[in-house]
């Protein structure tokens, strides 16, 4: 079911330009894990789909791929945000190039940790790149791998930032 004109338009453009088999994912219900402790005691992960990677250290995402790049990168949370670049061809980079915190808010989350508003910031943060008209590999392989990694380092909650 595609229920708005805007979604129909994106659906048509994506099929014409990138993936002739593209369809929106539609779900009837949402999974649920209750937050079991106060925020001040919560191990919080950052997950962003803005295509962030560490300049000169990480191989950039394959942003030019018509079908997207379902892989993810681990970004140590002590990485200076000025060391980040963004590989993603489907949004305007005006803001992230001036201020990476608009999409990968490590400075803000480190501050919230220092102030005790969150229990701790889970290390590392996880970076995906968001344009993915065929999400099968993401759903079956890379997102479960990221979940396993985050569970393994004690993440209890995650803030997810798209672009």
């Amino acid at each position: 079911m595609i229920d708005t004109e805007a979604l129909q338009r994106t659906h048509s453009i994506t099929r014409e330009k990138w993936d002739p088999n593209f369809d929106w994912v539609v779900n009837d219900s949402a999974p649920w894990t209750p937050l079991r402790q106060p925020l001040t005691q919560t191990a919080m992960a950052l997950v962003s789909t803005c295509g962030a990677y560490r300049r000169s250290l990480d191989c950039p995402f394959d942003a030019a791929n018509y079908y997207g790049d379902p892989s993810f990168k681990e970004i140590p949370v002590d990485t200076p945000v000025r060391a980040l670049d963004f590989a993603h061809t489907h949004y305007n980079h005006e803001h992230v190039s001036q201020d990476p915190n608009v999409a990968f808010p490590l400075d803000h989350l480190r501050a919230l940790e220092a102030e005790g508003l969150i229990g701790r910031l889970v290390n590392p943060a996880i970076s995906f790149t968001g344009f993915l008209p065929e999400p099968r590999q993401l759903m079956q392989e890379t997102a479960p791998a990221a979940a396993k990694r985050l569970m393994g380092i004690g993440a209890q909650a995650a803030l997810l930032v798209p672009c």
Partner: protein
Amino acid sequence: MGLIARVLEEAGISTVCLNMRREVAENVKPPRTLFVKFPFGAPLGPAGDLETQRGVILEALDVLVKATEPGTILDSPRLWRSTR
């Protein structure tokens, strides 16, 4: 983004998503969503506007704490650059 949130949630991690296209969240149904009326490329607000960026994060964390229904979508009252 919502797809990843669903996978994390199923694995046992409580998630909250920012979102700039409400109708996509309505279809994908992430567990908890804060809809912001910001353009693509600036999910937390304008470059250099630290107060707005932090405020959006705190709003999202509030959704994380207070939402009780799977698929909750709350609308941030913030307008682009209105806080500057």
